[in-house]
């Protein structure tokens, strides 16, 4: 039994017990070792006062059935499982694009954490807001705010770019008087230092090579 003793580490904390479970061994080994520890080597744990147990799975992802099994294994006598959690790193919301369709009408605010592709119009008085990039396949006539949590490399692109106002991070731009162009078709906006620049979408890869993967031809 000694060889798998190190899969389960039990620590005491002020608010209860922490079971740290190894995340590389097979799940059945964990159950076996838990059984052994609770029944044999650490059986005096079961005789104390009511104790909350916090189970940490490391990077392991478990199924509902496995969660149930863990729960049943530990939840005996005075032990009460309070939490079973994996510390899986949250995927970066800016590595994917959310696709939505509809119309953002006057008075409506569409907010998204991450990058947003919106298929439809954003009308005057409406707001589209994302922590990452915003791509509007339609007419952008309202307000768009990309990088609303401070991500300055964010861009705003639109098939028809005639916004009331554009914001990227904390920079506000009122078109078109502040822009060098009066073009409205297939445009995108990005930050160049403290200034917002507007250019044709074809130039996106030049200014933001990391915004999306670039097609380089066959």
């Amino acid at each position: 039994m000694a060889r798998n003793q190190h899969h389960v580490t039990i620590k005491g904390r002020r608010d209860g017990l922490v079971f740290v479970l190894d995340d590389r061994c097979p799940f059945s080994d964990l159950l076996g070792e838990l059984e052994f520890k609770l029944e044999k080597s650490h059986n005096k744990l079961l005789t104390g006062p009511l104790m909350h147990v916090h189970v940490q799975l490391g990077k392991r992802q478990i199924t509902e059935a496995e969660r149930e099994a863990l729960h049943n294994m530990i939840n005996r006598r005075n032990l009460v499982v309070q939490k079973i959690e994996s510390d899986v790193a949250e995927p970066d919301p800016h590595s994917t694009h959310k696709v939505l369709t509809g119309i953002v009408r006057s008075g409506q605010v569409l907010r998204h954490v991450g990058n947003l592709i919106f298929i439809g119009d954003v009308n005057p008085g409406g707001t589209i807001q994302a922590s990452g990039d915003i791509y509007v396949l339609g007419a952008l006539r309202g307000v768009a705010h990309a990088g609303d949590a401070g991500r300055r490399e964010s861009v705003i692109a639109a098939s028809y770019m005639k916004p009331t106002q554009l914001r990227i991070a904390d920079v506000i731009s009122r078109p078109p008087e502040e822009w060098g162009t009066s073009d409205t078709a297939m445009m995108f906006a990005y930050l160049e230092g403290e200034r917002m620049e507007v250019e044709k979408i074809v130039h996106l890869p030049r200014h933001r090579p990391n915004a999306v993967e670039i097609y380089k031809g066959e």
Partner: protein
Amino acid sequence: MGEAIVITSGKGGVGKTTSSANIGTALALLGKKVCMVDTDIGLRNLDVVMGLENRIIYDLVDVVEERCRLEQALVKDKRFDELYLLPAAQTKDKHAVEPEDVKKIVDMLKKRYDYVIIDCPAGIEQGFRNAVAGADQAIVVTTPEYAAVRDADRIIGLLAKEGIHTPKLVINRTRINMMKSGDMLDIDEICQVLAIDLLGIVPDDEYVIKAANAGEPTVMNPSSKAAIAYRNIARRILGDSVPLMAMEEKGGILSKVKKLFGIG
């Protein structure tokens, strides 16, 4: 079972009440049983435009507060046997009734009439919620101005939230010559932004003001351009396909309209 249509706009002064009176009357003219409901409590106008003010005995709030039966509050029109008006109260405000109260009344009216035309107050607060509560359909009235279109857009969003997903658009007070010269938002631009079906275009017509002041709905006068527009709208509500005013105003008719406006 009839259909309840709310006439709304968000912005004030674009012609909700005028449109309600004229669409209601035009439907009656086409032989339908119609009841108009004024939900602008505290600022009732529909009765004045219809010329029925002096016939009011009870109102919507009286019905809600059970001071009278629904039938007692209905005012019969002086021109048509099957056209009625349920007037709003002039002394209370929007908070005197709840959306459920209005819904109950509209549901009762729908059983007896082909069309229940609900005149909505301006704004997006309680008055709006009261007006749309019982409605199956909505007509959004706007004028060719940015502010009015902005508010119409807001209203379309709010109507969707209330479960009315396919409202129809009426563009009121259009001036063809100003649209052509680019001084006024044109029909296509408005329709592009609002992205809902166009039910009709009503030309700006001085006769509308005269008729409203006389308590006579514009549609009663077939020589008025606006009257024809409202009659066409009523026919489209009944499902007829009638070409739009803009198309009708080509050639000979256009010059007649110009003369009517004194710009020819």
